[in-house]
């Protein structure tokens, strides 16, 4: 056993919510509003409902071999070599996800908060903090998330509550202007972040109460989707579609509008706090899953030794893959959705079908013999 820690289903719920918020809260509003204009919120609602089907798929896949991670399930169902290749594809996806997250938080900090600081420095500091968490194991990560979760909720609550006076209802009118932009928006946000939830197949075997965990997977997806939905609709209502689409980080701009009674101004850093915390936890559990999965593919006894070499790799990868923001935005707009759908939707469906057939055949054999 590579991991002996166990987490409860409540901690799993919190991890799902934080995973949903982290990263996506930065770039989803601007990206979606650019496509669907003032109907972006309808578009995101549709995506959230569709995503429940994905969660259903992942839950089914998890129940074929409840005590095996996704990488092991791959090898068990597809055979040794094909399974290893498909697991490596999945791990490459996680590696890209990690480097993209690192790039996102780095570029956010260097353009908005710490202007002039080299992006590499922020990435290194973030990775080092993340390594501390990964080395301590899954239990420590999820319990730390448990400690910081109330803060995230509190700050989100503050953000939404203090923005209510600034709402202008005319910003979302006219509602429902044509079906095509809405569908296009839903298609483009399928992978931001819903199909990324396939990652949780890596840590599902270490959750204690399986039935409760499956319910919590649905709940976490809905709650995380609701937070993102609120962020999008508040961006539209407060800033208007034009400003939201122009900004790189509209929710940060949202924070600049906060003011308490005219004497407490410029408290946008509380928004940045939500991001830094949620991105940190997303980064850490993805990192953890990557090193665990790689150790399982290569058949190692211990995944702790992989942490530092992987840090080098992630760091180099995040600089190579995104030379600049335009490149990253183009990739997200064009290739990200089909790429994620292949790895996070087609492969699991294939695995599920073959796995069910294999199980049925083994049951048939057992009854005949």
């Amino acid at each position, binding site marked *: 056993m590579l991991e002996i820690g166990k987490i409860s289903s409540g901690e799993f719920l919190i991890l799902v919510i934080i995973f949903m918020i982290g990263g996506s809260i930065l770039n989803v509003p601007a990206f979606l509003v650019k496509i669907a204009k003032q109907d972006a919120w309808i578009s995101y609602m549709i995506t959230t409902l569709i995503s429940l089907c994905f969660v259903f798929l992942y839950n089914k896949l998890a129940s074929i071999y409840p005590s095996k991670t996704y990488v092991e399930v791959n090898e068990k169902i597809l055979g040794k070599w094909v399974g290893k290749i498909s697991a490596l594809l999945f791990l490459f996806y996680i590696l890209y996800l990690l480097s993209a997250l690192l790039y996102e938080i780095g570029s956010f900090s260097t353009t908005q908060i710490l202007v002039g600081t080299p992006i590499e420095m922020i990435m290194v500091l973030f990775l080092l903090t993340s390594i501390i968490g990964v080395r301590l194991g899954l239990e420590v990560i999820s319990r730390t998330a448990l400690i910081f979760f109330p803060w995230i909720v509190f700050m989100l609550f503050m953000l939404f509550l203090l923005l209510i006076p600034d709402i202008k209802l005319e910003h979302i009118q006219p509602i429902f202007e044509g079906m095509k932009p809405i569908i296009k928006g839903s298609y483009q946000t399928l992978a931001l972040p819903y199909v990324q939830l396939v990652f949780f197949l890596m840590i599902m075997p270490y959750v204690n109460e399986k039935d409760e965990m499956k319910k919590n997977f649905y709940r976490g997806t809905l709650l995380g989707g609701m937070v993102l939905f609120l962020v999008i609709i508040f961006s539209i209502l407060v800033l208007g579609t034009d400003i939201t689409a122009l900004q790189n980080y509209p929710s940060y701009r949202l924070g600049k509008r906060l003011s308490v009674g005219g004497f407490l101004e410029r408290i946008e850093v509380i928004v940045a706090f939500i991001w830094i915390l949620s991105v940190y936890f997303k980064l850490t559990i993805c990192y953890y899953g990557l090193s665990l999965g790689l150790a399982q593919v290569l058949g190692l006894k211990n995944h702790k030794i992989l942490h530092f070499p*992987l840090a080098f790799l992630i760091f180099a990868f995040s600089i190579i893959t*995104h030379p600049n923001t335009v490149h990253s935005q183009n990739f997200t707009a064009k290739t990200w959705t089909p790429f994620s759908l292949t790895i996070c939707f087609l492969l699991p469906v294939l695995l599920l079908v073959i796995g069910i057939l294999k199980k049925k055949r083994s049951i048939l054999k057992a009854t005949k013999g």
Partner: protein
Amino acid sequence: MWAIIGTVFTGAIISFFEIPQLIKNKCWREVSVFILLLLVGMTLSILLIKNVTIPNPLDWITKIYNPFASFMERILS
């Protein structure tokens, strides 16, 4: 120059702390994977410091998915 020295030094420190224990426990597979990954990561970092253009894997992925992406674009616009 200093950045390269720093990178190599970091790699050396990491190996100094990790490898002796692995050799003591005779985990040869782990040692080889560790050294291979570290070398790949360090080579990439040093090439980046030297400003060598490294082929971007995302561009290959974009090329593979280009037909599908433009098909979806045509349908949805």
